[in-house]
Each structure stands twice: as C-alpha cells, then as structure tokens.
C-alpha cells in the first residue's frame, strides 16, 4: 500500500428511539462534529465513504444517494458501503482503502441510520433477508435465529443464562458515562433474567434497542494526518470475511468468519499474540452472548472461556482486557451502521486518552473494534494503535 492511514477526528450524535431529524440531518450533525473536532472543513475532504444498513429501515430506496448531502458527498468521489450490521466497521475499512491506496489524502467516513421510520418495528423489514422459499413462511425474526445461536453456544460449553447475563449489566452500566447513550442502566443479573422473554433464551435485557443516530470519522494519510493533529490514531490492520449464505448450515457455537477477519487484520498489523497485544476491544454486542462469542472469534479468549473472563471481571473497564468500555450496542444503542462506527470512535478516544469518565486505566496503545452482520455471517475488524 502507498501510505499509512490515521483517524484524526470523530463525531457522534445522541442515539435515540426516534429522532426528529431526518437521516440526512443526523448524518450532517455527526459529520460536522467530526470535521470541527480536527479543525477541517468540507473542502479539505477528498472522498466520502458512507455506511448505512438496509434501505427498508428508512423506507428510502437508494439510501446511499439519499444520505449523500448530509454526508458531505456533494460533487465528491462518494461511495456507499453495506454489509448489514457489519457496515459500521466496514465503512472505515473502505475509507482506509481510499487513503491507503494513495488515491486520496483525506476521507470522511459517515454512518447514519434511521430505524424508527420502519413501523411498527424494523423487525418486519428483516423478514425478506431470509430465504423466501424455505424460511420466510415460518415467520423468522432476527431474535429467533440469534436465540438458536445463543442456545447452541450455551449447550456447547455447558453455560447457563446466568453466565451470560452479566454482559448486559456491564455494558448498560458502562453506557451511563456515554453522552450519546440511549439505554444506560444500573441493573442486576436478576433484572436481566426476569425481563420479558422474547424468544428463549433471549430476554428483553439481552438485546440492544432499535435506534436512530449517526457517527462520523475523518481519515487522513500519513503526511496529512501529522499536519492535522498531534494525536493521530493509526489504522494498522483491517479484515473482513463472509460465511455461507445458508446460515442454518453453520457451526453456531463459533464464528469462524470473525476469526478469519481478525487474523487478516492481525497479520496486517503484525500482531502475533492478540491476548497480550490487544489491550482494549469493542466486540459487537447486539445481544449479550455475542460479546462473548465474538471475543472467542477474535482470539481474545479460548473457545467457551469468555464467560469465565466476564465472571472474573477481566472485561470490566478496570480489568486486564476491557470489552465494550463505551457501553456497546446494549447500552449506547444500536442504530446499526452507526453502532459499528461508534465502536471505532470509542477505541480512537480511548487510545488518545480522551474517553473522559469512560477512560480505561493504563494508557492503552493498541485496540480493536469489530462488527458483525448480514445474515449473521460477516465479520469486520479494525486494529488501531496510537
């Protein structure tokens, strides 16, 4: 590749169940904040990478085109990225390509989502991601298939819901310190276990909410980055990987596609021992068990070991391997694409020592953000260092 790429600025709106703003307006708010944070204006931006999840959420076909004005795409090289829930980490990977290739010196990466438009609930929009001949007639929902995965994960390693529920307690508590958070809460494991049962074993407090919100970052090539800021955070590794479209045929206990994405990013970043070198991570946590499942796929825990690390406090903000210090999708909220980029921004802020009340101790130098999506089959990973 022809140049190193750094994150030099970031912005994020509040995540809410229904925003009065349109998706365009949310995109502009986050983008403007990101530019202001590093003293740039739109004319300093060479290209734009937009991430946004299904068009069906906003009820706007060609949502990439629709969101272009709020994303700074006017008369610029502009592209939309989409890999379902994995989009929020894929959009910066795509922006990285724009800059690493040497084609551009700066790239604005924007992720905007407006799920509240979809009425009565965006879950209905997911129906047609399932095979229309063999699956749709069974009325599948995303919760339904993640419940199958959650159950198989527990069965494989002899776990109980009580082993997994503390993820919700931790992340919602962490979110109490995040200014964008939609569902910050101080709750107990029993609160999670006693919350409304949606689809065994998934209870209400095991799951992230539907949200409206946007996030944005500014990427810059090596020389530009050093001109713009004293504290660039370098994207040292990127990886993404897709498993079979026949979701029912996969090994549900282990996300091999996440491992492949992580290994790609680790190789690029020269990481040999992820558990020692990745000091802080934001694995994608739309459901409680997914944080644990993804820690294992990311090789940050042995298979089946993540719940023990959780129980031992290793993944708390002040633990040896903090996970989702932001509060994650469970606590900050889940405006699909914006969630993944929120996670990238959290690692950016943590590595700069600017995460305020959320700051993990120990001056971390290397961290990772990951998202997951499509029909629970894509893993997207970025490794960052200061």
């Amino acid at each position, binding site marked *: 590749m022809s140049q190193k790429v750094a994150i030099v600025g970031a912005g994020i709106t509040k995540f809410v169940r*229904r*925003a*009065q*703003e*349109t998706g*365009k*307006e949310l995109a*502009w708010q986050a*983008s*403007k904040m990101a*530019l202001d944070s590093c003293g740039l*204006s*739109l*004319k300093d931006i060479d290209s734009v990478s937009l991430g946004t999840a299904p068009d*069906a959420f*906003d*009820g706007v076909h060609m949502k990439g085109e629709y969101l272009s*004005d*709020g994303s*700074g795409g*006017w008369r610029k090289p502009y592209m939309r990225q989409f890999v379902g829930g994995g989009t929020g980490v894929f959009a910066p990977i795509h922006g990285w390509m724009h800059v690493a290739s040497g084609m551009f010196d700066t790239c604005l990466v924007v992720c905007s989502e407006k799920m*509240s*438009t*979809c*009425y*009565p*609930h*965006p879950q*209905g*929009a997911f*129906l*047609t991601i399932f095979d*229309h001949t063999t699956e*749709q007639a069974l009325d599948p929902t995303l919760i339904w298939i993640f419940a199958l995965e959650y159950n198989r994960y527990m069965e494989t390693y002899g776990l109980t819901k009580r082993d997994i529920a503390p993820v919700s307690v931790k992340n919602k508590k962490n979110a109490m310190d995040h200014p964008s958070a939609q569902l910050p809460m101080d709750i107990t494991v029993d609160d999670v276990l006693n919350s409304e049962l949606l689809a065994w074993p998934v209870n209400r407090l095991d799951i992230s909410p539907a949200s409206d919100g946007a996030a944005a970052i500014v990427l810059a090539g090596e020389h530009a980055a050093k001109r713009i800021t004293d504290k660039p955070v370098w994207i040292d590794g990127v990886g993404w990987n897709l498993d079979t479209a026949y979701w029912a045929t996969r090994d549900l206990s282990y996300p091999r596609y996440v491992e492949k994405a992580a290994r790609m990013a680790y190789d690029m970043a020269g990481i040999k021992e992820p558990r020692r070198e990745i000091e802080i991570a934001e694995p994608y946590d739309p459901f409680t068990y997914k944080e644990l499942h993804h820690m294992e796929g990311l090789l940050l825990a042995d298979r089946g070991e993540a719940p023990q690390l959780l129980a031992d406090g290793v993944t708390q903000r002040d633990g040896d391997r903090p996970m989702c210090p932001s509060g994650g999708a469970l606590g900050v909220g889940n405006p699909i694409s914006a969630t993944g980029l929120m996670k990238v921004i959290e690692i950016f802020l943590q590595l700069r020592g600017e995460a305020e009340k959320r700051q993990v101790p120990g001056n971390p130098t290397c961290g990772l953000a990951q998202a997951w999506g499509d029909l629970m089959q894509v893993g997207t990973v970025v490794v960052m260092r200061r």
Partner: protein
Amino acid sequence: MGLSERIERNVDLSYFEGKIPVNYVYTYGLGLEKFFNAIKEKGEFLASRCPECGAVYFPCRIFCERCFSEITRTFKVPGTGTVYSYTVCHLDMDGSPKKEPDVVGLIEVDGTEGAKFVHFIDAKPDKVTIGRKVKPVLKAKKDREGGIFDIKGFRQV
C-alpha cells in the same frame, strides 16, 4: 405491451406471493418541518441562504450541502415562479390510463436564485408552456395538514 402488460394467472408451482410487513412513518426533519408549518399556519413559503457560501435552498434546510455550514435563518419568498420544464403523464403506476392526464412541472422559484421545485401544474396539457409565470394554489387554511398537498399545485398566470 410495455407498461400495461401484466401476468394475472397463477401457474402451478411457479410462484408465490410475498411482502415486507412494515409501513413507514417519516419525520419531516428539522428543515422541512419549518417549511410545512409556515405554509400550514401562515400560507408562507420559506427559503434559506447559507451564511458562509451564499447558496440558496428552497424548501429551507438546516445545513448547506456545499460547505456544511449550519443554516438557522429562513426568509420568505412569494412562492411564484416560472415553468422550467414539464411533462404530461397519461398512465398510472400500474400502466393503466389515467382519467385525466397529470401535468407535472419543474418550477424555478422566484427569489431563490434558481432553486427548483416539482409539483402539479393545473392546466390543460396543450396550454402549458416553458417560461410561463406560475403561482401556487393553497388549500383553505382549515384544510391544511402540513404536507406537500397543502399546495394543491401551480397555476399559470
């Protein structure tokens, strides 16, 4: 033939029907909420000008897409304009003939330095001309709900 060609008859095992079971509830957004409120409450048309680069937007917006500045102020324009282009639509979305053809116009809005707006023109198809002056026709105040059909259309003057 063309748009009106349809397949009405089911054929054994060749297809089945499906749908996405959602509706959409859109917010106006901060920009358009102001625009439609002004029409509904006062019968006024609001544009906005970027304080940095001077670009003019109609309907009013809250940010400038060219330079990303925030736009907080709006200004009134009369709502009149000029026919920039038009078409006459004879078929509906299913390809069936409309009872009366619709005349759809692109209106260059006065006082906006060339901003354009799309709406119906209330005129016989053979009477529409590019370059003609038009004025908006609003619903009676009691019937306005805050939406695009508070403006019934434009009439040539």
